[in-house]
């Protein structure tokens, strides 16, 4: 048993998760993945978990979830198969879902291995890395081209800033505000073109509840920011929105 324990211990950290551990057990026992003897596999699986616990290692929750799944399948397998097949044809194998998951995971595991075997840049193949410092004029850069920046770099930049100045409120960004901001930009763009607009005109043709509420909130926000002014010719008259400052 001691010998066994060390064997298990060595292999613990090489598993990528419960599915990986199951695949390992299936392979070790030379089992057909389409016809898993659930009782055997469950027993071995639980054995592993015990060892992990005995080594005082924290067990990721996912391993426990899988354990209960296995036990559940095992108990379902013990139920007698109904003699008359149900109307929908064959009764579903209690293992079907797990098998599907294992096959899917296995195929990605193989795909990952295949990826890792490709000739990788900076590992197997290399490109020119020295700068070509020809007489090429560097000022000839054209700014109108698309920029190669990812959204991730943008958010990283903002994150950097926030962590530097530690202003908690900067972190609060809610989706609703961003949707309103879209409309604010839209409203301001149209106001510069048209000089003034009524609320209905601002809504345009896209009249849905969300749009009406957001447009209304956007105008309130714009008034608060002192970017627009709202005028009314008479009580209950049409409200016209003007840019607060002529551009």
């Amino acid at each position: 048993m001691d010998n066994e324990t060390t064997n298990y211990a060595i292999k613990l950290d090489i598993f990528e998760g419960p599915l990986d551990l199951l695949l390992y057990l299936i392979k070790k026992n030379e089992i057909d993945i389409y016809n898993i003897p659930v009782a055997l596999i469950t027993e071995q699986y639980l054995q592993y978990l015990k060892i992990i616990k005995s080594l005082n290692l924290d067990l990721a929750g996912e391993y426990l979830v899988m354990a209960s799944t296995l036990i559940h399948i095992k108990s379902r397998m013990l139920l007698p198969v109904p003699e008359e097949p149900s109307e929908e044809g064959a009764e579903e194998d209690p293992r079907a879902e797990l098998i599907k998951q294992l096959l899917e995971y296995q195929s990605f595991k193989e795909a990952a291995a295949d990826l890792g075997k490709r000739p990788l840049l900076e590992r197997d193949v290399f490109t020119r890395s020295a700068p070509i410092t020809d007489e090429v004029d560097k000022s000839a850069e054209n700014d109108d081209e698309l920029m190669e920046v990812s959204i991730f770099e943008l958010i990283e930049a903002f994150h950097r800033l926030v962590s530097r100045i530690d202003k908690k409120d900067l972190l609060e960004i809610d989706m609703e505000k961003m949707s309103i901001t879209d409309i604010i930009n839209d409203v301001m763009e149209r106001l510069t073109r048209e000089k003034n607009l009524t609320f209905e005109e601002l809504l345009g043709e896209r009249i849905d509840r969300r749009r009406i509420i957001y447009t209304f909130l956007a105008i309130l926000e714009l008034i608060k920011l002192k970017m627009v002014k709202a005028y009314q010719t008479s009580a209950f008259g049409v409200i016209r929105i003007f840019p607060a400052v002529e551009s």
Partner: protein
Amino acid sequence: MENIKAIIEALILAAEAPLALDKICVVLDEAEKTEVKNALDRLITEYDERQSGICLQEVAGGFQFRTRSELSCWVKKLKGTKPASLSPAALETLAIVAYRQPIVKMEIESIRGVDVSAPLRGLLDKKLIRIVGRKDVPGKPIIYGTTKKFLEVFNLKDLSELPNLRELKELNEQQETIQEFYE
């Protein structure tokens, strides 16, 4: 254009990234696209036939000079440093993103059966994957996809060059097996 092959060669060497056919055509505005393509093909063959240490490869939607992979040990000896390699967790996560993109974190986790925050973050840092957008479902989860750099690093022309996953075929076979088993 007489020396079109030479010009293309120079352009590809000078470019900072794999150079797209279209871009070459923009620079060589007087040449026909087929003419450029032919010159490229001839260049590729010539480098191959000459058994040069360099080869011209189509990768990430463009053309680039790369050292021949058989010579990697020599180049590694020159560079000295050992390149950081991807962990199995990162590779698995990357494979799932590559094949299943656009994909959200939860879907990756349901395939791998474990939390993928750490490998996702590492792949983003390495710029192998990127945030493509958000899914229009409650919570607006982030959608991930692979980058051009992914194609460059893994020596792929485009995503269609990824080998087919075995999964689908096997899944069908499996269903038949189970059916037979119960019949």
